[in-house]
């Protein structure tokens, strides 16, 4: 009788543990909430500033419906790994709120295992907080050096080589 009670308790524990980790990607060790956090333009600026003096930063605004964004996304993930010690990547999804789960799914598919962001609020203050030179077209990329100085920014998709060129420039400047 005692044994069967222990087995039931063990099973309950196992089931609860399994459900508890549902929102956590087993392979990535990061919760869904951390993997894709809501952000405003101002909050994002603070995140970018927090890397000043530590690492160069590449900010990339993307969306699941944006073909050039999806095309260039793996290049940026690869480069983050390649320059891990000197570069941080801040991905910001500009998907519509109804597409949030799709964005999360895509991040997992791409093996993103660090905190990324989900744009909230009105477009104009968000765009202006990120760059005066950005018209709002996606994708948008901005590369800053360790001191927080903008080395390059551009709208439109880009190839691996272009990302690497400006990442190197940001790291070496």
């Amino acid at each position: 009788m005692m044994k069967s009670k222990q087995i039931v308790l063990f099973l309950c524990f196992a089931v609860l543990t399994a459900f508890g980790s549902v929102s956590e990607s087993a392979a990535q060790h990061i919760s869904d909430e951390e993997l894709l956090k809501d952000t405003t333009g101002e909050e994002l600026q603070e995140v970018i500033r927090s890397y000043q003096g530590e690492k160069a930063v590449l900010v990339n605004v993307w969306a699941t419906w944006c073909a050039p964004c999806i095309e260039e996304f793996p290049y940026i993930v690869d480069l983050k790994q390649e320059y891990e010690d000197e570069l941080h990547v801040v991905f910001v999804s500009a998907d519509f709120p109804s597409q949030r789960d799709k964005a999360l799914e895509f991040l997992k598919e791409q093996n993103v295992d660090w905190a990324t962001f989900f744009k909230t609020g009105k477009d104009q203050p968000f765009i202006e907080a990120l760059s005066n030179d950005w018209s709002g077209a996606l994708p948008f990329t901005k590369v800053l050096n360790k001191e927080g100085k903008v080395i390059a920014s551009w709208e439109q998709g880009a190839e691996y080589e272009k990302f690497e060129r400006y990442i190197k420039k940001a790291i070496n400047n």
Partner: protein
Amino acid sequence: MKLHRLVYVLLILLSVGFLAFLPVEDKLADRLEIGSKAPLTDVEVTDVSGEVLTLEEVAGENGLLVNFSCNTCPWVEAWEDRYNPITKMAEENGIGVIMLNPNAAIRNDGESMDDMQARAKSSNYDFYYALDEQAKLAEAFGATRTPDIFLFNSNMELVYTGAIDDNAKSAEEVDQPYLKNAIQNLVAGKEIDPKTTKALGCTIKWPK
């Protein structure tokens, strides 16, 4: 003389070195500034009806509204429920309306004239929807995304550019109907404020 030449060479080298440290902004053509004249107004474009038009011909007595739009952008889809009502309002106020499709790089992937005709039909477009075949007009306007608005007065001078309003997803939850306000103020002879706005959108797929 030799010293002068050396100074020039040094100055050039210093300038090049300095430029290398400036931020690089990959910009396409500059966006039309407020007050600028509409460019390429005599260039012929073909509407989904087969009619061949120029911007000059589309313009009304009080001005012209140009929207760079397309078939494949979710932001266009989000704002599309405002296309016909804004057209009605503009035309009632003597402003001609045209949407131009600049997505030249993906004509075989949803942005052909056939696709435009199908979209105009399925979404009951009540305005000209014409092909900017090689995106020459978009380039001349300095448009960057879809949708992207340019409103001109009766002298074909730019008076407002940017977003339709501040809420793509819900017409009911718009706080700032930028374009409607601009049209009303234009015909009333009042100051337009703001004259430029920004919103997220899909990049124009420029010809390769």
